[in-house]
């Protein structure tokens, strides 16, 4: 009777004991019990990750950054430097244009303005150029006279040694041809290429074009002055020399280019006054 009663009372416990005995060897049972706990913990971590691990993550990042400081600077420095340089050049250009505009207004508006202009005898453009002459202005670095289409170099002048001049002329022509064909804008021609603070200005003539590599920023007035000067050069100096097209024409064109564009006394762009040609 007592045994019967004990069996009845402990039946539930025995079943539980048996289930617990089987637990270590039964993955399905483990999974049933543990998975909800893991899921719950994962959900908690997902929601509270920044709070729980912020300090640890910050420490790891700090250590990593400290350890790779040189590599990081190597990556960032050139881009940053270039951005700053470009920004400064842009600001100088804006300043220059606004200064020119302001001086023009001051000296040309009203009776008082005209009187000031008459007394000083200095034109606004000259004055702004004089104020900005100490600043980093545009400098003609290289000039190429290139045959249209074929890309054959007819003559060039450069301030410094450069890579193969024939190659520059050909590649520039290839780029020009590509752009003019790709965008199919009728008879429109590529008039310039710009990268960073360096520009290649292109002045198109019928059988040839002149490409001028200029460093530094320049205003639209300076662009026009250069354009006029190139047209004048084409009219007076190139006309004769291009007709010859023999071994000496390249040399003659170079001399003319150097005289016209690299001679400080013939400065077209204000930055030219501070530079001397090396050739």
């Amino acid at each position, binding site marked *: 009777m007592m045994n019967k009663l004990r069996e009845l009372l402990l039946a539930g416990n025995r079943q539980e004991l048996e289930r617990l005995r089987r637990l270590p060897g039964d993955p399905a049972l483990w999974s049933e019990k543990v998975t909800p706990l893991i899921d719950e913990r994962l959900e908690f971590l997902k929601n509270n990750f920044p709070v729980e691990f912020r300090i640890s993550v910050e420490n790891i990042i700090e250590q990593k950054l400290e350890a790779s400081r040189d590599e990081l600077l190597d990556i960032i420095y050139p881009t940053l430097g270039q951005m700053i340089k470009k920004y400064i050049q842009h600001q100088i250009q804006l300043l220059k244009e606004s200064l020119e505009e302001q001086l023009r207004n001051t000296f040309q508006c009203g009776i008082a303005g005209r009187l000031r202009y008459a007394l000083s005898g200095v034109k606004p453009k000259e004055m702004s150029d004089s104020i900005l002459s100490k600043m980093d202005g545009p400098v003609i670095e290289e000039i190429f006279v290139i*045959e*249209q*289409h*074929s*890309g*054959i*170099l007819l003559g060039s002048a450069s301030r410094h040694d450069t890579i*193969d001049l*024939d*190659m520059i002329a*050909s*590649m520039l022509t*290839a780029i020009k*041809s*590509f752009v*003019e*064909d*790709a965008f199919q804008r009728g008879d429109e021609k590529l008039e310039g290429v710009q990268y960073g603070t360096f520009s290649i200005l292109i002045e198109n003539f019928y059988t040839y074009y002149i490409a001028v590599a200029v460093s530094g920023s320049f205003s639209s007035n300076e662009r026009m002055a250069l354009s006029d000067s190139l047209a004048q050069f084409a009219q007076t100096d190139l006309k004769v020399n291009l007709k010859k097209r023999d*071994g000496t024409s390249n040399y003659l064109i170079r001399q003319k280019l150097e005289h016209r564009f690299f001679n400080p006394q013939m400065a077209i762009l204000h930055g030219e006054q501070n530079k001397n040609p090396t050739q």
Partner: protein
Amino acid sequence: MISKKIVLTGCFGVGKTSLFNQFLFQRFSEKYLTTIGVKVDKKVIEVNGHKLSMLVWDIAGEVEQEKVPQSYYLGASAIIYVFDLTRPSTWLHMHSDIDYLNRLLKGVLINIVGNKSDLVSPEQLEYMKAGVPLSPNILTSAKTGENVEALFQSIGSALLLQNL
């Protein structure tokens, strides 16, 4: 020194860039990298004591030459029209292509070049000769270098003769 523009053209995959690299740098790669736009390089050759600067324009291949931007051809003194000896589809438009180039560049020197000669057997060569619309000026192999130098030398001689 006299400079001349020479254009390498033809269908894609015929080996224009391989000829270009073999002539300029004496190297060949099995890898096929399609040319985008145009690639220009220069080599100075000497013919009978006269120096000639060859500016070679390697332009992206097109099935038909009318699809190539015209400005790439303009100003060229010589055209090297390349086809693949192993692929009849590369000489399918040869006649119309050459007609087009002659119309576009009057009097220009055109060389028709059958490339990949290292891959063809004598029987295939016979088959090619029977099917190709215009007979090639020269057969080359950019891989082995066969006739590559000879091709450019013959063009150089012809161009110098025109100039003398």
